[in-house]
């Protein structure tokens, strides 16, 4: 098994686990959003790294159109990830907007304190 050669997958796994850990273990809502972003980045890394063809160059047409022997990396995953990045941005923006509203309503962005306020009220 080519463990070292698959280092990109290791990176993906590490990022995914870090992201998930932060989401679960941290109480601060803003930090949760950061964790979620890291988690989403790991998926992006997966796609981008899978697009790399060994010996391939960036998928941009060369200045000289007659060069036919160029090996390109796969452009499709990059394109897909542009969309995914946008989705990630939108999610982060929405999440942080909700956090701002939560701060207005509760006075805190710590999950345990929010829970305490809710329990006190009921």
């Amino acid at each position, binding site marked *: 098994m080519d463990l070292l050669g698959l280092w990109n997958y290791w990176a993906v796994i590490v990022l995914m686990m870090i992201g998930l850990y932060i989401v679960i273990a941290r109480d601060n809502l803003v930090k949760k959003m950061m964790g*979620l972003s890291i988690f989403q980045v790991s998926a992006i890394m997966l796609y981008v790294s899978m697009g790399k063809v060994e010996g391939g160059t960036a998928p941009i047409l060369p200045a000289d159109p007659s060069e036919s022997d160029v090996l390109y990396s796969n452009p499709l995953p990059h394109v897909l990830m542009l*969309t995914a990045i946008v989705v990630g941005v939108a*999610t982060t923006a*929405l999440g942080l907007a909700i956090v701002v509203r*939560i701060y207005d309503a509760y006075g805190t962005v710590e999950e345990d304190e929010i829970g305490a306020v809710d329990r006190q009220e009921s």
Partner: protein
Amino acid sequence: MEHLPVLQIVIPLLAAPVCVLLRHHATVRTFAVLVAWTCLGIALTLLAEVREGGTISYHLGNWAPPLGIEYRVDLLNAYVLVIVSAIGAVVMPFGFGTPEPGLRDGQHHLYYAAFLLCLTGLLGITITGDAFNVFVFLEVSSLAAYTLISLGQHRRALTAGFSYLIMGSIGGTFILVAIGMIYMMTGTLNMADIAERLPPVLGTRTIWMALAFLIIGVSIKLAVFPLHQWLPNAYSYAPPVVSAFLAATATKVSYYVLVRAIFTLFGAAFVFETMGMQRLLMPLALLAMFLGSIAAIYQEDLKRVLAYSSIAQIGYMTLGLSFANEDGLTGGLVHLFNHALMKGGLFLVVAGIVYKLGSSAIGDLRGIGRKMPVTMAAFVIGGLSLIGVPGTVGFISKWYLVLAALDSGSYVVAFMILASSLLAVVYVWRIVEVMYFQGDGESREGLSDPPLSMLIPTWVLIGGTIYFGFTTELTAGTASEIARMLLEGAK
């Protein structure tokens, strides 16, 4: 009308920013209603076309698949399109003329924009034939849904929306990872193409992981036990109309994605025989059915009862799927339709109650049965459908599910399905008793049924639960056709 498939998406998609521009309350509302009705019309036309002429394949921008994005409408997605757009068409005009719940003045155009975006996303997931497109529309609908949920009156709606955002995004990302892995092994994103290219690589660990990520990701969206944590809070604290819409559509579309993935992409043989997924899905489904119903019995708020009931009902749908026989799949698919009617109708009943009473706590419902008879009758009928009394759609779903259990030889599971319906009797009847009986000492003067603009959509859905309990040609007939098609056609 060869462009119908793309119009199904383009119309609500473009209508959303138009809503942002239209400031006048009544105008934007009317506009949104008309768009929703147009979507329903398109969906019905597509269903008719598919029934007559077979699968429709539409190439976006005339780029040929598998490189171009294809919208592929077969009987399964046409069926789901009709369900989603019908719910949208019924819920959108709900309470026309009364203020939208929880909205501050001057925000209604944004509300309708979000609503239409959610509708776009849901319709998009259903109609597309490209795997990555599914992810994109999934995120579109989810983001809109997070927004809508956070608009609830109580500040807990915000935390509910936030939790849903976190969990939903994790789910969506898992689906993205799964799509990535499938792309790695097959080189294509077109679903029909994937179906052809997967068999040679089904034995690879990558594909096993892809299946796992996909099922987990979709299960989060579908609120399959134990990944259901976001649902009770989200449905309880969202504005009731939003709950009605989401309860009747969002989970249905996620179920569609699961069915599509299992039967069209991977193939039933791989998923059930090789990977043995029913050993995972069936116990979880049974747990959902029982624990969801039991939890519903102990809730103090009407919306929470319905939310936990939804978890149980999703369990029924998943159970039908896990049998992987014709009756089971028919049962799951017909319950898609039936549950949309039941839950949509019941949540609209709650919306009417909240409008009149200002609360949906069960303790506040004492004796309202006498003053709000039409609303209460709707609740009783919806409740009877949840229980599965014959003459209602709930019975039709139970019929197929129990037969599926008998077909696969599990008499125990058959009994369990019937036993869990009895749990529904407890939580439904508890509410019926409170509404009809404990009326003394509560002055209910001046209380009356909500306005017609609320009663009519409610009764369209509730009446549907009885109508389709007797004429099942459209629902069960189509569902069994789809089941047959999925089980034989796709390997």
